[in-house]
């Protein structure tokens, strides 16, 4: 066998030769049986059948009723032959037909060369000439970056252009949009997506400063990432389509988070101080306005009052004057007497005759008794 497992064998004699058994396509294409039949087994089976046909003693595995038991038998037992043929046909059919679920597509290879794409339902790939690789084309696969899924180095920390460190975590959600390209062009699609996404996010971070990354909405960074990852995968002709990028986190690193929170608290504090000052300002301004209105109103009131009083007084005086002019002497006297009557009537009085007859005597005036209150009134 020339040191190899067989002409179609899966075995290889080259250490670096990567055969299909380990192509890292976990879960995406489950294999329809062995792509190439094992030659040893084939030959063994063939020998077995030959021996049966020749009338030898079979192991009894070709069908249930092997010709054992000593009795001479017809070397070519028609019944045996028939059942063997049926059995082989069934095995062959089992190996050749396969079904595809709605979310699956298959890539069929005729002697290793691409022949067609299998759609959902029952498919036929005549064994051993055609092999089929099944790929799930609608399942959304997720590759997480920065969450530690890619090893200890995958911590999401990266440098920004102002040489700060930012912590970005995200998921690339992708589907296989071209099974042929997906199978034939990339050896390690998942690893490629991871590497490309990681490179892209670092590229974006390196082109931006820290604060814009933290402040811009996540959608913008997500879109940028999606574009860049998609463009790179496109350039590899990978058959992969990026559905979306979920930005899980774009934040300051854990080590400095407290400081960022302190800034936020300070911003709130600033706001609070301003609001309080604003409240105070509004209060005293309103107070001042109120006081001003009060002052103005009081002044107006005073003004009106003073003028009214003056006008009243003046009017009264003029009225009196008008009548007085008609009979000044009499009116004058009358007014004087009326006023004096009122004044004198209410007060204590001592009438002292100061005529020439009394000049010899000094009148005694006990002022202390006369004055009840400290404020005295003397003539």
């Amino acid at each position, binding site marked *: 066998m*020339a*040191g190899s497992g067989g002409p*179609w064998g899966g075995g290889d*004699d*080259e*250490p670096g*030769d990567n055969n299909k058994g380990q192509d890292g396509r976990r879960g995406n294409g489950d294999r329809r049986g062995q792509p190439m039949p094992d*030659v040893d087994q084939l030959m063994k089976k063939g020998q077995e059948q030959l021996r049966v046909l020749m009338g030898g003693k079979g192991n009894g595995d070709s069908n249930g009723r092997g010709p054992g038991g000593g009795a001479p038998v017809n070397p070519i037992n028609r019944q045996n032959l028939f059942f063997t043929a049926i059995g082989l046909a069934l095995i062959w059919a089992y190996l050749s037909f396969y079904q595809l679920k709605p979310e699956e597509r298959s890539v069929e*290879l005729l002697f*290793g*060369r691409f022949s067609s794409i299998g759609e959902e339902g029952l498919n036929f790939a005549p064994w051993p000439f055609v092999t089929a690789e099944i790929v799930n084309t609608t399942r959304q696969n997720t590759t997480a970056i920065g969450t530690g899924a890619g090893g200890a180095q995958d911590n999401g920390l990266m440098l*920004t*252009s102002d040489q700060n*460190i930012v912590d970005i975590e995200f998921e690339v959600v992708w589907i296989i949009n071209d099974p042929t390209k997906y199978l034939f*062009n990339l*050896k390690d699609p998942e690893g*490629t997506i991871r590497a490309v996404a990681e*490179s892209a996010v*670092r*590229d974006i971070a390196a*082109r931006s400063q820290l604060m814009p990354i933290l402040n811009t909405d996540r959608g913008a960074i997500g879109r940028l990432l999606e574009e860049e990852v998609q463009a*790179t995968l496109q*350039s590899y002709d*990978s058959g992969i389509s990026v559905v979306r990028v979920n930005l899980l986190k774009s934040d*300051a690193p854990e080590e400095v988070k407290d*400081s960022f929170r*302190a800034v936020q608290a300070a911003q709130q*504090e*600033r706001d609070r*101080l*301003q609001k309080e*000052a604003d409240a105070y*300002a509004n209060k*005293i301004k309103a107070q001042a306005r109120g*006081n*001003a209105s009060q*002052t*103005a109103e*009081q002044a107006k009131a*005073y*003004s009106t009052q*003073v003028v009214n*009083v003056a006008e009243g*007084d*003046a009017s009264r*005086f003029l009225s009196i004057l008008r009548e007085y*002019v008609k009979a000044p002497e009499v009116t*004058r006297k009358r007014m004087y007497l009326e*006023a*004096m009557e009122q*004044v004198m009537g*209410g*007060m*204590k009085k*001592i*009438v*002292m*005759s100061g005529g020439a007859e009394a000049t010899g005597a000094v009148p005694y005036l006990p002022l202390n008794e006369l004055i009840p209150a400290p*404020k005295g*009134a003397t003539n």
Partner: protein
Amino acid sequence: MRAIYVIPALVIVAAAALSSIFTVDEREKVLVLQFGEIKQSIDKPGLYFKVPFIQDILRYDDRILGLTTTPQEFPLADNRRLVVDAFARWRIVDLEKFRRAVGSGGIEAASANLGAIVNPEVRDVLGEATVEMVLSSARVGLMNKIRDNAREKAATLGIDVIDVRLTRTDLPQQNLTATFARMKAEREREATDEIARGNEAAQTLRAEAERTAVEITSAANKDAEIVRGQADAKRIAIYADAYGQDPEFFAFTRSLTAYQTALKGDTTSMVVSPDSDFFRYFLAETAAAPKP
């Protein structure tokens, strides 16, 4: 018993037939060796034949392969150090050349060779750049330069380097602490600034408000005094107008009013002489009418 000879003969013929047929998959390239000599290089998939037992086939992956370099730390043009790693995507284009250059080590050996090409390229290209350049939009240009250089060199291995990209361009571990400390200091500066600005704004607002209040109050007082003054003036004018018609009579009536208000009540004691005008008729001997 001819069958005894027939069966082995058939088996040998079948085995020979089978071992002369082989397929080449879409994902493979195949070398056909005859006693170690390269006879044929196949890069199209399909069914092929070879001379059994004499010729041997070697299968190689025809897909895009990955290479991730180990992180390397080195100084850049501005003497600042960065830890850099990169990944390359490559595929075998010239199988014969590849085999001759790489030997029997296959893909693994090729990866090692390619790593030995890419790593120095990364160092060389970034070594001429500054940290600012690496952390800017010039990064793409640097990556492309690394890729082009690596592609040129890797061509001798029969390899096409499809892409080289920088992944990590990070600060060395021992610089991280300093960087974090700097970031913290920056934040603290910002926080202090925020509070200071808050206080500034608050103080300004308060002072402005107080000023406004004083302005409003004083303006109101001024206006009030003006109004009062005008009213006083008007009063004076009114009084002057009225009383000016007979000042003497005004003095008389006003005096009487003043007496009435000033000497009100029984709090006042008065010593009067009956000679006063009020008592003109009080002790008069004659109540006769004055002579005409």
